[in-house]
C-alpha cells in the first residue's frame, strides 16, 4: 500500500542527497546559524541578564535559528512540484497507478528529512555548550520540538506554492515572500489588530513558535502546527487535482 510512497520518497531523497545543492544550502545554513550562536554567546558573556543566563541565551538562539530556517526551507521546497511541471514529468507521474497523496507525502517526507539533516548539525551547539558549562537540557528540547514543527509547516506552505507554478524561481520567491510576511506580521501588534490582517496574523506560525523558544511544549501550539500542515497539504492536493476540473461542465 505504501509502495508508491516509498518509491517517491526514495527518488526525492536520491535527488536531494546525490546533488551538491543540499550541501551548499546546509553550508549556508550552518554559516548563518554558527554566526548567530557565536554572537548570541558573546552578547550574554559580555552583558548577562539576571540569573538565568542559559535560559535567556537559548531563547535568543532559537528565535534566531527560526529566521535561518525561514530563509533556507524555500530553497528546499521550490523545485519539488515546479520542476516536475517544467520538465513535464508530472504528466508521467499522474498517469502512473499512484494516488496524488502518495506523490505529495513522498515529497513532503523527503523534504522533511533533508531539513532535519540540515538542522541536526546545530545539535553541536548545545553539546559544545554543555562541555563548557553543564546546563539543564529541558531548556533545549522544547526549542528543537518547536523548530521541527515550524520547519514542517514551512515545508507544507512551500510545497503548496511550488504546486502552483512551473517556474522554480517563482516558487522559491513566492514561498520566501509568504514566510517573511508571516514573520513581519509578528513585529507590530498595533498594526495587526483589526480586520482580515488580524486573522492572518493570528495564524502566523512565527508567533506560535514563541512558547517553544521559551522552553515550553504546549499541546495547543502543537495542534496549531498540525492543523496548519494539514490545511496546506489539503490545498496542495487540491492544486494537483485542479487538472481534473478543467473543462468540467
Amino acid at each position: 500500500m505504501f509502495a508508491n510512497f516509498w518509491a517517491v520518497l526514495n527518488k526525492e531523497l536520491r535527488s536531494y542527497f546525490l546533488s551538491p545543492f543540499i550541501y551548499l544550502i546546509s553550508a549556508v545554513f550552518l554559516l548563518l546559524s554558527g554566526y548567530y550562536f557565536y554572537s548570541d554567546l558573546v552578547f550574554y558573556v559580555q552583558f548577562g541578564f539576571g540569573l538565568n543566563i542559559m535560559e535567556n541565551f537559548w531563547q535568543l538562539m532559537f528565535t534566531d535559528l527560526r529566521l535561518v530556517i525561514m530563509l533556507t526551507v524555500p530553497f528546499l521546497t521550490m523545485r519539488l512540484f515546479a520542476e516536475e511541471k517544467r520538465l513535464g514529468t508530472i504528466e508521467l507521474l499522474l498517469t502512473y497507478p499512484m494516488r496524488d497523496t502518495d506523490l505529495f507525502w513522498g515529497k513532503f517526507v523527503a523534504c522533511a528529512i533533508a531539513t532535519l539533516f540540515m538542522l541536526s548539525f546545530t545539535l553541536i551547539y548545545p553539546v559544545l555548550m554543555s562541555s563548557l558549562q553543564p546546563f539543564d537540557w529541558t531548556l533545549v528540547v522544547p526549542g528543537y520540538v518547536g523548530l521541527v514543527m515550524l520547519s514542517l509547516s514551512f515545508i507544507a506552505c512551500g510545497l503548496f506554492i511550488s504546486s502552483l507554478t512551473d517556474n522554480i524561481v517563482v516558487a522559491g520567491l513566492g514561498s520566501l515572500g509568504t514566510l517573511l510576511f508571516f514573520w513581519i506580521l509578528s513585529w507590530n501588534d498595533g498594526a495587526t489588530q483589526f480586520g482580515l490582517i488580524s486573522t492572518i496574523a493570528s495564524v502566523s506560525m512565527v508567533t506560535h513558535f514563541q512558547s517553544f523558544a521559551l522552553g515550553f511544549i504546549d499541546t495547543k501550539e502543537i495542534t496549531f502546527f498540525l492543523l496548519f500542515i494539514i490545511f496546506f497539504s489539503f490545498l496542495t492536493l487540491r492544486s494537483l487535482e485542479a487538472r481534473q476540473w478543467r473543462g468540467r461542465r
Partner: protein
Amino acid sequence: MIGVQNVTKYYGQVCALDGVSFSVKSGEIVGLLGPNGSGKTTLMRILTGFFPATEGSVHVAGLDVATSSLEVRNRLGYLPESVVLYPDMSVRAFLHFCARVKIDGTVQRRANVERVLSECALEPMAHRQMGTLSKGYRQRVGLAQALLGKPEVLILDEPTVGLDPNQVIDIRELIKGLGGKVTILLSSHILHEVELMCERVVIIDKGHILAEDTTDRLSERIQGAANVRVRASGPRPSMLNALRALKEVAQVTEHDQEDSDGPEGAVFTVRSSNHAIAREIAQTIIHNGWALHELRPVTLDLEALFVRLTREEQKEAA
C-alpha cells in the same frame, strides 16, 4: 480493448474534442493521425486518466477510465509527447523508480528493468545521466518506462518525433514487434509513419474524426488509383506515347522542365488502376533503350489527404 464513446472536451470556451467515438480491438496497432492542435494529445490524456472528458465515456480493458482510474493506469503504458526526463538521474535509477510504482516484488522489478533496457537497446546508456542523453535515447527511455510491467495497452504520443532516420526505424520495428501482444494507440502527424506501423488509422482534425479505416483501404479510397512518378531520358513524344499505350493507364501527365527538380530527362506522372504498373513502365522504358533515372510511387501527403477528406465532409454536409 479501447472504447471511446462520444467524447467531448472543452478548455474554457475552446472545444478540443467534439463527439469523438472509435474503438481499438485487442492486439491491434491503431494510428491517430492529425495535424498539430487537432486534439490527439487531449484524447490521449483522457485515455490515460490525466484529466476527464467534459462529456462521453472512455473504456480501457473494459474499465471506465473516469471511475476506475487506478485500475486502468495499472494496465497502461504511456509515452507523453516530448518527454523530458529528470536530467540528473541515471537511466537505470529512473527505470527502477518507475518499476517500483508499477510492479510488485523486487525480483520481478529487476527482471523487468533489464528486459526493457534490452528491448529498447539502452544497456550501454543505463548508467548515464538522462540530461546527457541524445533526444533519440531519451525517447527510448520514455518508451522503456511505458513498457515496464507488461501493460495491456500502450498509448504513445508521437513516438518517433525528433528522431533521426535510423532511430525512427529502430523504434518502428520495436513497436511493430509488440503488435498482437499489446494493444497500441499511437499518434503522429506523418501519414507515412502511421502507414508503416499501423493496421488501422483514425484521422482527426479540429476535434472531429474525419475518417477511420485500414491504411490500405484509406489510401485506395483517397487516391482511387496508383500514381507513379517517372523520370527518363529519351525522345519526349515517343516516351509519352509508349506510356499512354500501356494497359490500364488512365492518365499520363508531362511535367515542365521547371517542375522537375533535376536536370536530366523528362518527368511524367502515370495514373493507373493497376497498382503494379511501375514494373511495366520500367520494362517499356528499358526495352526502348531509354535511360530510366527515377521511378517511384507518389503517395498523397497529409496536407493533400486533409484537403480531400475535408472536401468529402463538406460535400456530405451539403
